[in-house]
């Protein structure tokens, strides 16, 4: 991809407005709000919210602890099941998880604000407590290598450390946290929360982080398998799917995930290059996030082009509405058919075609139009890169690593979880659960 060299279009938005735009999407509850909200929970038996949570957090119990003004105990209840409880409180699509099934959603169409209550408890803990909520078990003398310091890898490392094992985590990037640090929308995790959370998790002890180490380049998997008692892979999805259009490598056609990583690391958001007319291709969280964030950075027209209908989008209805209230236009039932370039070779437009269903299959209708675009963002999904797996013969499935219910791969010393395994949900919380399941399986395998 060619670097963007065009001038920053800072005149469209003041620095103050921009910083305001990137403040907390959902401001935290204060104590009064938290108590009022907690009072709404019915402490349901076999609570549907708890079943819907991929990490099975005891939601009714932690809300009751908030009611009884013990937010620290509430946080411990959360951390017992999900050590990333703080991040999950910020980024979980609760509208399709716990809050969707809350009995008060059924009764009144207004679920208990579980995500915000979870944030209240975990924030209170992290602000107040000087100690880690858990103590390590006696040392087992076992050593485990974890590759990838994202939610899957660190969740696995934390659980294993708690059980008394010694962990070394290798990660390719300069900073730990995976997409928590480089991918999640900036307004969901303000004030350097991703790094503060990693620091909190590491306080358990027994976890050594080695950043800037790429599996397949600096460390080799067969060596890890030899040197350690077990290996866990949580390496995510490093590549982006291509549009398959001519001109995809021109200036102005950008990988959304790369751009968001730069946005997340930018010291000065004003230094980012922002188009006037932006078109985003895709229908998932990444598409929504890049669309909203470029709008907030000052783009004038942002359009999401998605080939199917509203209900087919991976992004929830809530996320779609978030984009729309931020002035993003979502064009359902359209697909890109060609990129147009100006004299300088950079993108200046995109041709799109209306789509429809014929016999249940998606087809183009032949009706086309061109949208002006100085930036086109590709957000049509990430893909796995098997190269780092070397020649160990780890089996793949649907292009990702195959793992069983305990997250063990076809190699008996290697476990894997998070986005890099097949059949997952590609959510932070699901990755945390994978890491936890794998840790329990590794522990069982090593301790007999």
């Amino acid at each position, binding site marked *: 991809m060619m670097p963007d060299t065009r001038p920053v279009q800072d005149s469209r938005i003041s620095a103050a407005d921009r910083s305001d735009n990137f403040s907390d999407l959902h401001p935290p509850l204060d104590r009064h709000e938290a108590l009022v909200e907690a009072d*709404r929970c019915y402490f349901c038996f076999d609570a549907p919210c708890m079943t819907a949570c991929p990490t099975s957090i005891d939601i009714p119990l932690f809300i009751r602890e908030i009611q009884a003004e013990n937010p620290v105990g509430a946080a411990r209840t959360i951390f017992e099941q999900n050590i990333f409880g703080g991040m999950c409180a910020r980024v979980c699509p609760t509208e399709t998880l716990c809050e969707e099934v809350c009995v008060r959603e059924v009764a009144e169409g207004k679920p208990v604000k579980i995500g915000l209550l979870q944030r209240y408890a975990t924030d209170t803990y992290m602000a107040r407590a000087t100690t880690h909520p858990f103590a390590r078990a006696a040392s087992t003398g076992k050593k485990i290598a974890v590759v990838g310091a994202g939610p899957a890898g660190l969740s696995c490392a934390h659980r294993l450390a708690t059980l008394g094992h010694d962990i070394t985590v290798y990660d390719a990037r300069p900073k730990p946290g995976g997409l928590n640090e480089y991918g999640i929308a900036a307004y969901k995790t303000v004030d350097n929360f991703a790094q503060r959370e990693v620091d909190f998790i590491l306080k358990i002890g027994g976890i050594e982080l080695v950043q800037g180490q790429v599996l397949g380049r600096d460390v080799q998997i067969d060596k890890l398998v030899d040197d350690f008692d077990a290996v866990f892979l949580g390496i995510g999805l490093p590549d982006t799917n291509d549009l398959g259009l001519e001109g995809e490598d021109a200036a102005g056609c950008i990988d959304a995930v790369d751009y968001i990583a730069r946005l997340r690391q930018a010291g000065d958001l004003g230094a980012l290059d922002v188009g006037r007319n932006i078109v985003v291709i895709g229908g998932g969280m990444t598409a929504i996030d890049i669309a909203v964030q470029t709008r907030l950075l000052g783009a004038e027209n942002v359009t999401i082009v998605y080939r199917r209908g509203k209900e087919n989008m991976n992004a929830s209805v809530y996320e779609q509405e978030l984009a729309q209230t931020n002035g993003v236009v979502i064009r359902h039932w359209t697909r890109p058919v060609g990129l147009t370039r100006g004299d300088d070779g950079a993108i200046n437009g995109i041709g799109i075609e209306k789509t429809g269903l014929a016999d249940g299959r998606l087809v183009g209708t032949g009706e086309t139009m061109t949208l002006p675009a100085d930036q086109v963002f590709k957000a049509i999904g990430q893909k796995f890169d098997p190269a780092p797996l070397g020649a160990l013969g780890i089996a793949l499935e649907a292009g990702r690593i195959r793992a069983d219910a305990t997250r063990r791969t076809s190699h008996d010393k290697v476990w894997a979880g998070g986005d890099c395994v097949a059949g997952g949900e590609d959510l932070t919380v699901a990755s945390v659960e994978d890491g936890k399941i794998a840790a329990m399986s590794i522990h069982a395998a090593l301790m007999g």
Partner: protein
Amino acid sequence: MADISANFLGIRSPNPFWLASAPPTDKAYNVERAFEAGWGGVVWKTLGEAGPPVVNVNGPRYGAIWGPDRRLLGLNNIELITDRDLEVNLREMTEVKKRWPDRALIASIMVPCDEESWKAILPRVEETGADGIELNFGCPHGMSERGMGSAVGQVPEYIQMVAEWCKKYSRLPVIVKLTPNITDIRYPARAAHAGGADAVSLINTISSIVSVDLDNFSPNPSIDGKGSHGGYCGPAVKPIALNMVAEIARDPQTAGMPISGIGGVTTWRDAAEFIALGCGNVQVCTAAMTYGFKMVQEMISGLSDWMDEKGYTSIEDFRGRAVPNVTDWQYLNLNYYTKARIDQDLCIKCGRCHIACEDTSHQAITHTVNGARHFEVIDEECVGCNLCVNVCPVEDCITMVELTAGTDPRTGCPVDADYANWTSHPNNPATREAAE
């Protein structure tokens, strides 16, 4: 981490949370579920004498009052003691105690008020391996019509007599469960003490009619168009229970007698308050009946976290700490001045403080300042009564602030740092007489 285990009369339990004698402890199935959920002990549902058991109504037993959002605040019941055969209960108690040796198991007993009846049942109960007995002198309905329950608990002489029988015929610790349906709780407590009882537990339920059906004019719960008074319990009765506990804890004749606190305990905080007033443990009924046994997990973490925060390592570290601070009105410091303060950042401008003070109290809160809706305390009028604090929907928005120097703008009296109470106040007729 704090140690929340309790030792009550030598009866140890991993935490001070027991289930009170009531439906949650009616049979092995419930009790074992309770122990699995973490409860420290149970007082088994009250046993009656051998022979055909009592019968319950076959219609509704409960009525309730609710706060906003249908939060259950008070529960009323017309249930009697256990309606299961004595032998079945005794067998199950024996089995459960054997399976759960680390949990407290207390037998609650109510038999007719004659020596033979008590003499007959006590050895049977002892055989079960129960850790102690609780004498149910409390039920205000049904059983009292038959000369038992509160009919005994309202006559101190009977209490003393039965307690003496129990000490005579059993080696188990004896807890006397008191009825609150009495004017001065100290008399039955003193009687229990005099009879040699090891402890008292309180309160049992309060006689009540919870509501009246305005279609058929029957009290609720309605049994075929009629109702009888029931026993009231749940969060609503906690203040009554706390006062009664405090009265016993600070009565010189009963001071130091172990107390098991009962009445409205719902969270760790309620439990801590009972313990601060001297209780060695607490018993819970309504909260468990509302939320299920799992609620004890909140009580366990809450009490332990609070103790950690305060640096208390055991329950004894704070037990009874509030007792010396319960005193008579006449000893309250009349030189202690407070004024209400409204935090304008927290104020949501509902006006409840203003109207409460304006209509019913001292006209000490503004509603308009410089033409704008604004609620502010007028120190010249504020008597420091705390009403506004209690009616404000936002916690901590209105607080009472102590005056520490200068004069009270209302009375013009200098704020005196020295303690002075009614006994020496010039307006007190007794003081005047003494001076004359």
